[in-house]
C-alpha cells in the first residue's frame, strides 16, 4: 500500500436517538477520484459527509482519510478537508469580505487580502463585498460559502448539493470548479439529486437507501 486511500469507511453507523441515519457502511475511495453520492431524501448523505468532514463522528465503525483516523487526527485532517454543507457557516452580521478574511487569517492564507478579493470576484460578489451576509439572497449565500471553501485548496472536497440555489451560470461555474479540483488531484465527494449532471463529473457512485449502500459500488 504505497499510498493510502483518500477515504476508507469501515463498517460505519451513526445513530440519532433511536434512528440509524447511516448503518454499517463500508467503502473506499482511492486518492484523486471523485465519488457521486445519491439517495432519497433522508437516506443519510448529509450525515455521511459530516462524518467525513470530522464535524461529527460515527457511533460505531471507523473512518480513515489518507490513512488517518478521523477521531484521533481531527486537527490535522481538518486542514486538508473542506465541506460545503446545507448550512453556510457564515456569520450573518459580517460582510462578505469579513467572512472570508476571518477564514483566510485562521487558515494562514498568504496575502489574505488579495486572495479574498480574487475569490469574491470569482463568485461574482465584488460589488456586494461590504454587505452583511444577512442581506444576501439564497444564491448569493451559496456563492459566498463556495468562496469560503476555496480559500485554501483542500486535498478532499465534500460537496453537499453544491448546485442548489445557484443560477444557470453559477451551475456551470460549479461544474468547471469540480473538474478543476479533480484535475488538481483533489478528491471529491459530490452529493446531489441531479444524477446525470453528477455522473458526468464523477468516477464512482454510491447510492444510499436508509443509510445503507445499495447496488454494486462502481
Amino acid at each position, binding site marked *: 500500500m504505497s499510498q493510502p486511500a483518500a477515504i476508507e469507511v469501515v463498517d460505519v453507523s451513526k445513530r440519532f436517538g433511536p434512528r440509524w441515519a447511516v448503518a454499517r457502511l463500508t467503502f473506499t475511495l482511492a486518492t484523486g477520484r471523485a465519488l457521486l453520492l445519491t439517495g432519497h431524501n433522508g437516506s443519510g448523505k448529509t450525515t455521511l459527509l459530516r462524518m467525513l468532514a470530522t*464535524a461529527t463522528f460515527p457511533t460505531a465503525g471507523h473512518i480513515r482519510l489518507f490513512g488517518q483516523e478521523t477521531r484521533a487526527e481531527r*486537527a*490535522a485532517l481538518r486542514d486538508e478537508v473542506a465541506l460545503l454543507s446545507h448550512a*453556510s457557516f457564515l*456569520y450573518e452580521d*459580517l460582510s462578505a469580505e469579513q467572512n472570508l478574511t*476571518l477564514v483566510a487569517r*485562521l487558515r494562514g492564507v498568504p496575502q489574505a487580502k488579495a486572495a479574498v478579493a480574487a475569490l469574491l470576484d470569482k463568485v461574482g460578489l465584488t460589488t456586494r463585498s461590504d454587505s452583511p451576509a444577512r442581506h444576501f439572497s439564497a444564491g448569493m449565500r451559496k456563492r459566498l460559502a463556495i468562496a*469560503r471553501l476555496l480559500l485554501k485548496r483542500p486535498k478532499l472536497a465534500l460537496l453537499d448539493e453544491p448546485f442548489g440555489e445557484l443560477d444557470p451560470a453559477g451551475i456551470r461555474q460549479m461544474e468547471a470548479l469540480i473538474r478543476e479540483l479533480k484535475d488538481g488531484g483533489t478528491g471529491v465527494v459530490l452529493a446531489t439529486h441531479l444524477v446525470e449532471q453528477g455522473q458526468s463529473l464523477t468516477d464512482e457512485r454510491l447510492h444510499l437507501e436508509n443509510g445503507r449502500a445499495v447496488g454494486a459500488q462502481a
Partner: protein
Amino acid sequence: MSGHPKILAGAFEVLRKDLLIEWRTRARLNALIFFSLATLLLFSFALGPDSELLRKNAAGYYWLGILMASVLSLGESFRIETENLALDGLRLIPTDPRAVFLGKAFGNAVMLWLLSLIVLPVMVALYDVTIREGVAQLAGLLFLGCLGISAPGTVYAAIASNARARDVLLPLLLFPVLLPSLLASVKATGLIFEGDPMLQLRSWVGLLASFNVLYWGLGFVLFPKIIEDD
C-alpha cells in the same frame, strides 16, 4: 500540532471577529448599558425609597446588575455562533477549540468590564456611595470579577446554545456555580465602598483570584469537550 503561539493567534482572531460583529451591529454594549441602568433603577424602585439600605447593599445590587447583563451578553455571543452552524464552520477551519474558548471568554470579560465601568458613576450617584479605597483598585477588582463570570459563563453558554430552550438554560446552569465567586466580588467591592479597616480586602481578592485560576483552567480543558461533537 498546535503549539501555544498558534492557540493565542487563533484566540486573537476569534476575539477580533467578535469585536467586529459587535462593531458592525454596535448593539450589544449599548443595549447592555441601558439594561443595567434599568436594572439598577429597578432594584431601588422595587425595594422602596430607603436610601440607607440602598447604600449599604450597593455592592450587591451592582454585581447583580452586572450578572444579569452577563447572562444576556453571553447568550448573544453564542447566538451568533448557532446561526448557520457558524461554530461548526469555525471548528472545521480548523480553529483550536481552546482558542475559541480563550477568545470568547476574554471578549466577554472585556465587554462586561466596560459595562461595569460605564455604569459605575451612575451607580455611585444613584445609591450615594463613596469609593474609599481608590478607583484604580476598584477597576482592577471589577476586571477580576468579570473574568470570574466570563470563564464559566462561556462554557455554560456553549452548552446552553446547543440545547433546546437555550435562553432559559444558561442562567440556570450559570448562577449556582457563580455564587461563591460572586460573593467574593460583592464583599470586596463593599469593602472598597465602605473602607477596609480590618484589611479583609486582600483575602477576598485572593479568593476571587483563586476562583479565576480554577475556572479558567477548567474552561480551557473542558470547553473542547463541549463544542466537539463526539
